[in-house]
């Protein structure tokens, strides 16, 4: 697999990613050792869903695959579930087009 698995239960697709994907249904309280830090899940995270490795502020870029996949809309602590309730797309909104198709959206 391209990414790096963490304790066989989550996968980080690129080293610069600040979120990882659960590879099984994970209970609250489950801990992961990532880059020498311990991340504790604040809530259950379902298979295929993501959680944060580091804390994020509103406006921070969320990275997966080494690319920008969205922007945080509220404070997210390390170990919190990251999904549509706290992250928004940067693209495809009426009157708010990314438009700039030359790679600026990617930043990476």
């Amino acid at each position: 697999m391209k990414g790096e698995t963490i304790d066989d239960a989550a996968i980080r697709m690129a080293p610069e990613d600040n979120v990882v994907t659960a590879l099984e249904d994970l209970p609250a309280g489950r801990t992961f050792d990532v880059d020498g830090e311990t991340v504790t899940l604040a809530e259950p995270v379902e298979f295929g869903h993501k959680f944060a490795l580091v804390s994020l502020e509103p406006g921070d870029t969320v990275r997966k695959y080494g690319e920008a996949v969205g922007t945080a809309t509220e404070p997210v602590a390390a170990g919190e579930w990251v999904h549509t309730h706290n992250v928004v797309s940067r693209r495809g909104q009426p009157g708010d087009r990314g438009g700039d198709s030359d790679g600026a959206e990617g930043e990476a």
Partner: protein
Amino acid sequence: MSESATDPREFRGYRRADGRVGVRNYVAVVPVSVTASAIAKAVAAEAGTGVRALPHQMPLSPNGAARTQIETVLEGVGANPNVAGALYVALGTEDIAAEELADAVAATGKPVETLAIREAGGTEGAVERGVDLAESLRETASEARRETADTSELVVAMECGGSDATSGLVANPVVGDACDRIVEAGGTGVISETPEFIGAEHILAERCVDDAVREKLLARVDRRERMADLMGVDFRGAQPSPGNQAGGLTTIEEKSLGAIAKGGTTPLRDVITYGNRLPVGGGFVVMDSPGYDVESVSGKVAGGAQVVVFTTGRGSTTGNPIAPVIKVTGNPKTYERMHENMDVDASRVLEGESVRSVGGTLFDRIHDVADGTLTAAERHGMAEFAINDLPANEVATLGDPT
């Protein structure tokens, strides 16, 4: 990955008069409009084995751009090398002339017939006459014999539907590996679903062979993104779809970055307009299409794709009337729950098998299917077909994409 790391593999297919190779030997019954779709289905059902209907919902009098696109697709499916002979069925009052479609397909060297429901005296007469014509076409088709062909003659369409997080993590990278192998062996691999390039187009743009291809790609992505404006739709509600979101996909960027993995890593050689002819021996190319999987698959099959590879995380059963559809899932629960509808288990990657290894398994399966092995969708008679419409307001605002 080195050039030509994969050698062409042989399979046995039906070499048609225009040089293209079919992997199936069907008679296609193609309605010209929705008014002929029920008759086409009845003809195929009554004629039986080897006769496939391609019913759709297109109207009698589509606007100019929509008409061009419908004609392209209707001609393309008849010309597809999986089709040995075609019957075009019209009510008889359509703007699109069945005879013109038939002439264009006959120019590829295969037998083609037409049937007008009004001239056949109505429903019963049309079905009776249609079955006679289909049986006659099938008799001609039965003379075709499989002969040796290889990977360089395959046009393989990559598609995804019912995506979840495993699509981008596992299944699409496996398909991308198989796409690389097809291209290295001299064949054509094609991805489409342009809305699912949004947020990842910079990666595809870097792979374009020249500025002309890059500009065409970015213009097509931009047009798809502008459709959100036009329709007053917030992509955040529809893309990713509610099902995708339940599967863990949060934004269109995340979905797109996973979706383009289906196209592997080789240079992007061309961008083809919806339903238009795909090159044989053309390397990796993109077809501009909507995100709706049935319309997207139908466009690529109209372009001449003989085999479709379709990834699904949440589980899809879809097939196509004239092209085998190989189902790949990266979700172990879906593989278990919908085993009868799945062909390749890419979730083995989650258990430690390499993407390269499962990609090799898929590459082999593509050739087995080209050789005649039935896919799960074929065994279950799954045969969806739909043509993308071009609403007049979209053409007026964004221009004619055809």
